[in-house]
């Protein structure tokens, strides 16, 4: 009875709403961005405030190769999404594998850098303010890369065994938004830590 009134003589117009996955991911990205902003502010605030060595200038080297790898993985993941939307699942798997590989190279690069810093230069999170802020900021980013890589690897597995179809393109797209965000954060971290901070 009431429904009759609800529906009565309303013209049937298309009622289109935004995708909840995209909106949710955008919100998550806002929240994550706020976390990174606080860590970046702490890093900038403590530049040059360490009361003992080593300083960034002594020990940091520009991670050019790994940066290129991480940034180019944004393109590969985008291509994966596009191919999944067009139901080209083999190509999608290929690009996903490329993304995972590039991300893994980035992580390996970070691991080697940290290894070098800890064992050759004796810089740990306890050493000085530079160590504290460097490991926490870069580590926070690296942990996001790890989470992204885990999700992308899952997607790759499901893509390879054929259970991911073009029906899931929207979900892969949401995941790719997260990956783009992780890359964008790296640009900021790179500029702050390796360019401004040195």
């Amino acid at each position, binding site marked *: 009875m*009431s*429904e009759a*009134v*609800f*529906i009565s003589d*309303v013209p049937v*117009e298309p*009622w289109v*709403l*935004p*995708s*909840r996955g995209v*909106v*949710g991911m955008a*919100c*998550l990205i*806002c*929240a*994550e*961005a*706020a*976390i990174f*902003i*606080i*860590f970046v502010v*702490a890093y900038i*605030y*403590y530049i040059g*405030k*360490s*009361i003992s060595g080593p300083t960034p200038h002594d020990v940091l080297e520009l991670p050019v190769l790994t940066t290129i790898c991480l940034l180019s993985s944004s393109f590969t993941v985008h291509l994966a999404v596009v191919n999944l939307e067009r139901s080209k699942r083999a190509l999608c798997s290929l690009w996903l594998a490329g993304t995972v590989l590039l991300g893994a190279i980035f992580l390996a690069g970070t691991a080697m850098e940290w290894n070098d810093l800890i064992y050759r230069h004796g810089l740990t*999170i*306890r050493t*000085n*303010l530079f*160590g*504290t*802020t460097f*490991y*926490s900021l870069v580590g*926070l980013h690296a942990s996001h890369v790890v989470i992204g890589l885990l999700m992308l690897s899952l997607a790759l597995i499901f893509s390879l065994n054929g259970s991911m179809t073009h029906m899931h393109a929207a979900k892969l797209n949401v995941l790719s938004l997260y990956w783009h965000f992780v890359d964008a954060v790296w640009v900021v971290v790179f500029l702050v830590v390796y360019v401004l901070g040195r």
Partner: protein
Amino acid sequence: MATQTPEIEILNQSTPTEPRHPWLEVLHGWVTTVDHKKIGLMYIGYALLFLVIAGVEALLMRVQLAIPNNTFVSPQVFNRLFTMHGTTMVFFVGMPILFGFGNYLIPLMIGARDMAFPRLNAFSFWISAFGGLLLYFSFLGGDGLYGAGNAPDVGWFAYAPLTSRVFSPGHSTDYWTLAVLLSGVGSVGTALNIIATAICMRCPGMKMSRLPLLVWLYIVTSGLALIIVSPLTAAQIMLMLDRYAGAHFFDTQAGGSAVLWMHFFWIFGHPEVYVLVLPAFAFANEIIPVFSRKAIFGYPAMVAASVGIGFISLSVWAHHMFTVGLGAGANTFFTLATMVIAVPTGIKIFNWLATLWGGRIHFTVAMMFAVGFLFQFLIAGLTGIMLSVSPLDWQLSGSYFVVAHFHYVLVGAILFMIFSAFYYWYPKMSGRMLSEKIGKWHFWLFLIGFHLTFDFMHVPGILGMPRRVYTYEADRGWMIWNVIVSSGAIFQTIGTLLFVYNMIRAYFKGPIAGADPWDAWTLEWATSSPPPDYNFETIPTIRSRRPLWDLKHPEDPDSNYEF
């Protein structure tokens, strides 16, 4: 929209399971639920539980402070009491109860069947709830200074360097950090969920310009929560790194800065007040029009003012830190920014008054609490403007004047609106009406108690009584004020007990409410009380901001007047 045949088989398969004990069945139903109404009720119930606990803590403190040189509790216990009271009230009462109402009401108001992410919703609730349990487990498990069980005692804003390993050995401070971290994860999850729901789950015809104002304000408050809870999470991670990994973020010995913690905390801490008060505004936006029998005045101005408050509140945090010595430039900026907030807030108050003006006002208990809110929120705002002037703040910061000011906001505005919301939506949630008679006793007792406590609390503050002291000398002239303040707590306690009794009594033998006891206008009143699992049999299609007015007055619908 479901096709009929195949699902019936699935349904038939699931029914002949072995019947379990009815209690187990009920428990299983609540633990596994992803229904926004049940989760909302669990949020509200668990917030009420913590409200009682934190209220008891407040009572203990008032007993201790009632007379000079009292030895009712020891200084150590007093420190734990105010730390736990503040932390609990903000993170495990304020946020959950508001998220609870949001969870319950938003899908109903926008004509949806559930939240955008129902499982995330359950996750967020459970992680906040477990966070609260972890916090209170510290009473048993947190070995503190003397090795015994020990709750956190560093104050709810936990200033560095008191929180460092040197000054807070043991794990009591870690309990605080971890519990707040957990609650932060839950808050971000729910805030995200509310925004996604309000944007992506609206029923046909529910344009953003037709959203009920409550939903609009929840969008603003959730957006604010997303942006500000994360800095707190970040600061807590830094504190954990300091305490566990030996980092130096807030370690002044190694060049770290204690003031940085203050900045990070208050970047969260001040907007947090707005996260709490905006839902209170949201309730007022729904309740005042219904009991004035008029549409809300100035809908676009209300939305704009709310968004404005959200933005401005991000730029005022350092008014908590005037005594640090920020320098004249920063003091001027934060003083002015703080005062500017009075403009959008003023717009809201004038719009509520304009809504009341000329209306046929029905003084139900819900409306009485709402009118109390208007009056008290104005006073709280005025003492806020006093405190925003930095020289006055230098004088009063850290005194009971500040305590009185923010309790005026938290109790006089937010808690009053929460009570109002209970009286207004309890019939929808339970299907039964609360007793108006007991409700009026509750209102007047609580009102008297509130004013006794918090009006007179300003005075010892001006006379120089500092916060967080566990006792004071008799010759300071503070005693009479503290007696009055503590006696007000008795009235508030009785009022609250009446409220609890009212809810329990109404659940069993209150009059049946029916779908729409208040003759209201938003969609939640278009379904039965309590609503079925699926909310609406058919997703409604609406054509104005007051869909139920349109239905009730087909000869004069709102949709004729809106653009």
